[in-house]
């Protein structure tokens, strides 16, 4: 048995802690404030209950919230956003209230603030960690609410000068110390309340129609995390992402085998750069244009012209919230189908935009991730699970060509460019005739003669590539790709530097491949001129009819050891990580991403399964059985059966259905006299002289006589008759029974007459 007050305190603390955790999962609080909140929460929980009645704590209870309010106003004036200030205030207010609580009213405030924390967590966050907090809230909330209410009732009813039966004031602290109020069964019951609450919540969540006004959608990053994907490449800064295990992209190839490979290396192209200034890559052009979707469906985009991509191999992608909102494309992609969330009336639609260097971004869902299906032409390329990522792919994106006036952009070299770099290029490409052969030669040299190292010293030098090629001879992927691009440009071959991800480790729980931030990679696309370019008609402006006279081909000069995913795929840590990540994906897909389409599909699926079951049962269409087993009739029948079952249950509960045993004469006598006595009790009770269950019949009758209640003597006589027959062995013949009944009737008549006299 546990003390009532202690259980209440523990449950309230748990609820408050879950609320604060829910707020922390939103990522709205800065790290120092988050740490302060956690430390404060721990301290507030550990403060002894006896301290809460000290004068200092009482003063703190009054002034600390005010001081906190003023502090937050000051922070608002200093430039924090109103949202940050509000969340900070709500979090720290809970800490203050926990530390200075005194009595049931404060505990109820804590419960209310915790509830508001969950509302905030729902709106501002929503990741799996919030889901876990929510699950904990489901378990703890019923018990905490019950105990909080009981304590408030105790304090409200017993602190108003009430006295117990001994005449002493009711001792509220004694009740709070009592071990009789709350026992194991109580705790079990309140915890088990989570089951019906959860079931009802789940049922309502699934069944509530996802149709509404949708005036606006919460445009907030649910996970509180953004995938870092740089919009430029700086050789002096990047490279440390290789140690970040956070998931950036999940992909699910179509028709996975039953036992899929643990690694499936997929090259995901993000963005590309054409200008190098000696230390960093950037883009010369930044114009973006919306991509025209297909006519029959606004969510489908044909990235190549003339392809029917609906029958190509499909790969599903889920990109975590990312900045910038780049759409990562696998090699040989020909089309995209965006899986769009419900759109608010006042929200901008999610559209696909095309930028320079065949880069695609999405708009209208900034701060959110995106899901899409990519259709690839040659599924074997780049998705075959090869351990060597040196796959050669060509871009099939429409209009991804070099116009004559743009060719110079891809041959640009930095102002400070050591002469020995072109010399090295000449050396490596000696004897190679075509651009492809030259590119292959340079790529081979870099992969074989240089070492992958994320801690290369070349990044801090004035000429990183020169230092990389001739001094350190080690570096991360961007050194390799930049070096290859510059070497090829020195040879007069147009190139561009591409960044994206290369990776894919299988998650056995979610049955998808995870690409992590540590799989960020950089490589090179080389323009390979068509050997037999058809000359354009001289009268046609080249801009009007872009003629593809070559194509972009991918080369990856980074040694395989550096381009492989670094994360291990076995071990207990991987097991736990995969489990958590899969749960996160399910949470995002089936809870956060549950929409009208999914709902309709769910109901349709249930109906289809039912129809299949009917077919298997051999029900012929059009017949009576078919009509009677249609879903609407089945649902109505189910409701009717449930109603009838409930009615039968109530009747059976009142009347035991066990076959009646043959009763002995004594049992029959006992039943008859008991029935008569119950009539007497009913008569007495109807006129204000009911017998308390704890008072024996004889004592009750004697008390009626002692009180000189009307009919008290008769009641005593009848009670004595009852006791004599029931327990004394006296016979109950027809005469005794009739006399008993007659006296009972007379007693009732006397009471009725007395009541009537009183009324008149």
């Amino acid at each position, binding site marked *: 048995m546990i003390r009532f007050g202690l259980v209440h305190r523990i449950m309230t603390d748990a609820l408050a802690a879950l609320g604060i955790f829910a707020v922390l999962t939103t990522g709205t609080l800065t790290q120092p404030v988050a740490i302060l909140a956690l430390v404060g929460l721990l301290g507030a929980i550990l403060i002894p209950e006896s301290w809460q009645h000290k004068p200092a704590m009482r003063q703190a209870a009054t002034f600390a919230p005010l001081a906190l309010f003023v502090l937050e106003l000051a922070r608002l004036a200093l430039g924090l956003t109103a949202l940050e200030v509000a969340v900070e205030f709500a979090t720290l207010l809970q800490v203050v209230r926990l530390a200075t609580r005194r009595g049931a009213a404060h505990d109820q405030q804590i419960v209310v603030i915790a509830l508001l924390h969950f509302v905030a967590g729902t709106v501002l966050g929503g990741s799996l960690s919030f889901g876990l907090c929510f699950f904990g809230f489901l378990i703890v909330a019923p018990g905490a609410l*019950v105990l909080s209410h009981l304590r408030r009732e105790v304090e409200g009813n017993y602190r108003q000068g009430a006295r117990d039966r001994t005449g002493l004031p009711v001792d509220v602290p004694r009740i709070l110390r009592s071990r009789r109020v709350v026992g194991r069964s109580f705790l079990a019951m309140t915890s088990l309340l989570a089951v019906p609450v959860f079931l*009802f919540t789940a049922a309502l969540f699934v069944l509530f129609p996802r149709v509404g006004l949708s005036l606006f959608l919460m445009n907030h990053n649910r996970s509180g995390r953004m995938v870092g994907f740089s919009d430029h490449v700086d050789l002096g800064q990047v490279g440390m992402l290789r140690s970040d295990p956070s998931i950036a992209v999940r992909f699910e190839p179509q028709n996975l085998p039953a036992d899929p490979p643990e690694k499936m290396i997929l090259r995901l192209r993000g963005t590309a750069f054409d200008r190098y200034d000696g230390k960093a890559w950037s883009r010369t052009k930044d114009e973006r244009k919306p991509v025209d979707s297909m006519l029959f469906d606004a969510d489908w985009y044909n990235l190549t012209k003339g392809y029917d991509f609906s029958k190509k191999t499909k790969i599903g992608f889920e990109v975590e919230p990312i900045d910038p909102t780049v759409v990562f494309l696998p090699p040989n992609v020909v089309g995209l189908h965006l899986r769009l969330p419900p759109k608010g009336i006042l929200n901008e639609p999610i559209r696909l935009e095309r930028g320079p260097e065949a880069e695609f971004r999405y708009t209208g869902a900034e701060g959110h991730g995106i899901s899409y299906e990519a259709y690839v032409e040659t599924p074997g390329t780049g998705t075959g699970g090869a351990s060597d990522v040196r796959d050669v792919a060509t871009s099939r994106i429409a209009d991804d060509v070099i116009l004559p006036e743009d060719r110079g952009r891809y041959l640009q070299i930095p102002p400070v460019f050591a002469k020995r770099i072109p010399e090295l290029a000449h050396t490596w490409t000696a004897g190679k005739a075509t651009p492809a052969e030259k590119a292959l030669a340079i790529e081979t040299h870099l992969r074989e003669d240089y070492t992958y190292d994320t801690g290369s010293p070349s990044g801090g030098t004035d000429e990183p590539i020169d230092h990389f090629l001739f001094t350190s001879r080690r570096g991360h992927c961007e050194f390799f790709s930049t070096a290859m691009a510059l070497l090829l440009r020195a040879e007069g071959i147009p190139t561009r530097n591409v960044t994206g991800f290369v990776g894919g480790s299988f998650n056995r729980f979610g049955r998808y491949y995870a690409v992590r931030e540590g799989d960020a990679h950089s490589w090179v696309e080389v323009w390979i001129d068509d050997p037999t370019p058809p000359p354009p008609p001289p009268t046609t402006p080249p801009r009007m009819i872009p003629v593809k006279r070559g194509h972009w081909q991918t080369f990856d000069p980074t040694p395989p050891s550096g381009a492989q995913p670094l994360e291990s795929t076995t071990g207990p840590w991987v097991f736990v990580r995969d489990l958590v990540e899969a749960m996160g994906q399910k949470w995002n897909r089936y809870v956060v991403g549950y929409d009208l389409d999914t709902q309709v599909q769910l109901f349709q699926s249930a109906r289809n399964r039912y129809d299949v079951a009917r077919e298997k049962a051999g029900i012929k269409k059009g017949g009576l059985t078919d009509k009677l087993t249609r879903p609407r009739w089945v649902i109505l029948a189910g409701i009717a059966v449930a109603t009838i079952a409930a009615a039968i249950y109530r009747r059976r509960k009142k009347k035991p259905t066990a076959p009646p045993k043959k009763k002995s004469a004594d049992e029959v006598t006992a039943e008859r006299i008991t029935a008569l006595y119950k009539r007497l009790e009913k008569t007495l009770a109807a006129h*204000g002289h*009911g017998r308390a269950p704890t008072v024996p019949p004889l004592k009750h009758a004697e008390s009626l006589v*002692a009180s000189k209640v009307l009919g008290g003597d008769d009641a005593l006589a009848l009670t004595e008759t009852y006791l004599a027959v029931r327990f004394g062995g006296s016979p109950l013949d027809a005469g005794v029974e009739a006399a008993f009944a007659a006296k009972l009737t007379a007693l009732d008549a006397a009471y009725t007459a007395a009541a009537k006299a009183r009324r008149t």
Partner: protein
Amino acid sequence: MTDVTVLPTPPSPPAGDRPWIPSAWLALFHRRTKMPRRLKFTREGKFFIGITLGVGFAAINTGNNLLYLLLGMLLALIVVSGILSEISLQQLTVVRKLPHRAQVGRPHVVEVEVFNHKPRIPSYAIEVEDLRAGQPADKRCFFLKISPGSAQVAAYRRTPQKRGRDEHIGFRLATRFPFGLFEKSREILLDGSLIIYPQTEDVPPNAPPRGDREGERVAIRRGYGDEFLALKPHRSGEDLRDVHWRKSATVGQLVLRERAEDQKPEVRLALDVHRPVGEDLPNHATGALDAALAGNRSPSLTREAWDAGFERRIRDVASKALAHVKRGDVVVLRTSAGESVRSDPSVGIDPILRFLALLQPAGEELAVEAKPAPDRAAPANVPAPTSGPALGSPVTATSEAG
């Protein structure tokens, strides 16, 4: 001297004044159509409903699934609250234990016992209001926990402000369990009646009798008192302890002292119960309270003032009667309407106080509600005092945690 008069029952109103729907039918309709449970929002409940509506509105307007999840949880808590409060209220029976007597201005205790007939489930946070006809339910008992198959007793203390019959009509069982969001209640009909005696004050009794005076007389009869009445020859069977031995020796036969009856003075008290009728007694106040208190009738007396004076006279008569009974006198109270009631030390003051409790002014349509007791007998339904004439010994409100 049992000249008890019961005024005739007032005649039924003329047919034209009767309501076209009998009140019994209305009562039956009310009983049939009354909801078995009543639900009321608490302050916290209103707040909770506000949050729920807000979350629902936000969920529909944003399409945020987590808000739907939260909405589901909030609605689930409401549903669970309804079910648990229903379980908590089910299978409870209540019994009221009224005191033997109660008096205006003196607190008395009413015990309330609640029995939980559920075999396994306790009832939590049950509040019981004792309902009285025509009066607001101002007294309630709280039961934190009533274990399954057991009973809990609590009590409330009440100080009546008005004499008469207190009709208890039932109980209102309410609970805010489990979350304090709503107060669900149901009513249990259980009649009970308590006669509230008029207030009494400490007043001195009238002076002891000195012969015949108006309202007092002394009669000397044979009896078994302490006083000697005469001497007489002893007869067989008489108590030898009363033999006057000296006189017996003188006359040569046993002479017995004859005792006088222990004669207590019979104090007669009178009470005017006739209220002036018609235009002599307007309803609006005219400031004639002093005259009313003095018992005078004045054309300018108001109804309220006369009633106040009537109550004051009842209080005075009750106080005087109590003082005399305490002294051991026999008291006979006679009203101007002809009713009378008698009390003596053997039956206590209860007959007179009960009579006064139910006394109504006469002169209009009013009558004494109940027949007063015949002389030398306690009226039915009124218990005789068991320990002196003191009424309603001070009690304390009892209230016990479960």
